[in-house]
């Protein structure tokens, strides 16, 4: 264990040794998941960490990244790169600013603990069920399409955030939710992950659908970064990442090269855009 820690620390130090100070950008409220993940990146940079710049939203962050001449990174996501029908997304960045996929967590299909009817997989597959999900179009469209295949009788109900769909689950307004992290009072029935998590069956083993594997993922983007190809692996090798308390989010697509990861992101966004075009 000590050897492993020493090795990873040495690797981290070596990886960042020749770097200039790197700034980070946060564009969400402190205390949230974004803040926690960004803190891990900052701590993994050690003495090479410069300053944290806080801006109001992803569009402002994108503008900052386009204008800065200092090494600067930010947490990002495929959703920010998404656009449909040729419309422009104010948060979208050029491909050269993509550094790599950082972390992801699969969505699960969960129910209220104690709800025996909802605990039955047949009910999920055939019942007149209601499923609460995040109302963001980027996340909702593939999920709605997937649920329509999983159970044609199911209705997907959009909620602004987990602050809204979790109480709705407890109140019995909906039968299931689709979160990435499971809270006390909730049990899950299936995962939208690639492989089984906590012995949960995967939806991909039940149906064949382009979105049967769905994750909420974070990428890292940046400007003027000296070593974009190894940046993410350096963070993943750091003690801060390995010893993080909340292990819900794990490394994602780390076996792919940066170019392959970018292709993967482009392809998933194209699939979602196609699905939206189909619905329209």
């Amino acid at each position, binding site marked *: 264990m000590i050897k492993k820690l020493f090795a990873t620390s040495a690797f981290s130090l070596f990886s960042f040794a020749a770097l200039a100070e790197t700034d980070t950008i946060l564009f969400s*409220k*402190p*205390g*949230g*998941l974004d803040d*926690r993940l960004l803190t891990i990146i900052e701590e993994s940079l050690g003495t090479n960490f410069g300053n944290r710049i*806080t*801006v*109001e*939203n*992803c*569009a*402002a962050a*994108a*503008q900052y990244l386009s204008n800065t001449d200092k090494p600067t990174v930010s947490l990002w996501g495929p959703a920010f790169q*998404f656009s*449909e029908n040729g*419309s422009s997304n*104010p*948060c979208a960045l050029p491909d050269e600013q993509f550094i790599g996929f950082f972390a992801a967590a699969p969505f699960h299909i969960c129910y209220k603990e104690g709800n025996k009817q909802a605990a039955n997989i047949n009910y999920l597959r055939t019942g007149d069920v*209601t499923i609460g999900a995040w*109302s*963001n*179009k*980027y996340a*909702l469209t593939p999920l709605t399409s997937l649920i329509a295949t999983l159970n044609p009788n199911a*209705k*997907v*109900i*959009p*909620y*602004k955030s987990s*602050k*809204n769909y*979790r*109480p*709705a689950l*407890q*109140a*019995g*307004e909906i039968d299931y939710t689709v979160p990435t992290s499971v*809270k*006390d*009072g909730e049990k899950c029935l299936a995962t939208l992950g690639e492989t089984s998590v906590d012995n949960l069956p995967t939806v991909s083993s039940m149906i064949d659908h382009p979105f049967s594997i769905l994750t909420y993922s974070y990428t890292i983007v940046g400007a003027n970064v000296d070593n974009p190809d190894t940046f993410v692996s350096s963070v993943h090798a750091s003690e801060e990442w390995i010893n993080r*308390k*909340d292990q819900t989010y794990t490394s994602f697509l780390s076996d792919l090269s940066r170019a392959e990861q970018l292709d993967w992101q482009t392809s998933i966004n194209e699939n979602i855009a196609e699905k*939206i075009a189909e619905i329209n």
Partner: protein
Amino acid sequence: MIEFLLVFCCALLLGVLSGLLPGIGGFAIMVASYPFLIHLDPVNIIIFYITLVSIDQFFGGITSIVFGIPGFAASAPTIYEGHELFLKGRGSDAIIYSAFASYFASIFSVILIFLFLPYMWVLYKMWNTNVQAIILLFASTALVLFSRNNILISILLFIVGNFLAHVGWDEFNNSEFYTFGFVYLYSGIPLFPLLIMLFVLPNLVNSYISYGSSKINFIPFYFESYFTYIKNMKQYFGTLVRSSLLGSFGGLVPGLTYGMSTLLAYSIERYYQIKKKVYTKGNMSCLIAAEGSNNAGALTQLIPLLFLGIPITGSEALIYNILETRGMPVSIEWFQSTFSLVIFTFILSATIGVFIAGKYINFLKFLNGMSLVKVYIFLGFLLFIMIGYTGYVNFSLEKYLIISFLLLPIGLLLYRFDTMPLIYGFVLHDLIYQTFIRINAFYF
């Protein structure tokens, strides 16, 4: 124990600060205190929050009454009725009755929680989208009907408020709405400058026209008067029970919380007063209804967190995140174990709040005899600074200032109107929009 006392005292002080300073709400204090909160014992984080919210309610009301400026959006009815009472020379009455109403509502909500604890599940199941839609519809209709404007103007103002709130990036449609390509507008128009320019400013101009040449008449308050006020509170008993009940139930609803229940309690009380033909601007019953429902909701909004482990407000989500970051077991059992201490702290802070409020009145004696114009000029500067400050802490100083300057002439033109429908149209927009989306998904 020492940490508890320190946390409690800090929260008391910060609660006073967040109440007195416009634009700095409880959530802003929670965010600013985040670096300290993460080192506290988890129970004390909840204690910090409940003390802060409770005290913030008492002092937010005082600022609204005396200066006509808001602590938060739910202060709009307090400003409308309370500041008018202040200008009529009933400032002390307004503050003390508000403080007692807040205290009564706090105790009422505690009793209500104890009574309904075994039935919490049954009660909670009532809060579905349909019920929320009915409450929203009822509150919005009441707001429009009982405003002093012509109904058509009130409807128009309500629609304008909704329109302004929709500006920004719409996640549901993955599209922008009237951002004109300005990056800072993607996260929408902020509430604070809008509230100041389109509600506070027209109200202050209106008050200046009515009372401009007069001097402030502020009657000092004596400790012995507490008993007289308590006796006099009897006449408002019905109002207190109604508003506390609405505030308590409103606080339970995710997304509604006490801002919504304040509007509901206020609108219903205004309806009663109009029906009894005793309503004029500066109505004590309406003020008591607004202030009482605020405080009742401040406690009950914690119930989903304490008994279901679900954070329903920004501050509660922050607490939840802190616990998760520290690898704490964020279980329902743990939250429930804090219940007794939360209740004790809430009652303690409410009791302290009611006494400090009395003391604070005497501190305001210096206003006595001062010309209203001087006070309003001072307020203008203060509000300008606070807009700048809130803009700065929200990383968009330019946006706050530009929006303020753009809205300034509109606010001046609106001085003849009751702009509360516009403000609540803005505040309720998100709820209305989300509820509409869900109703559509459920039934169509």
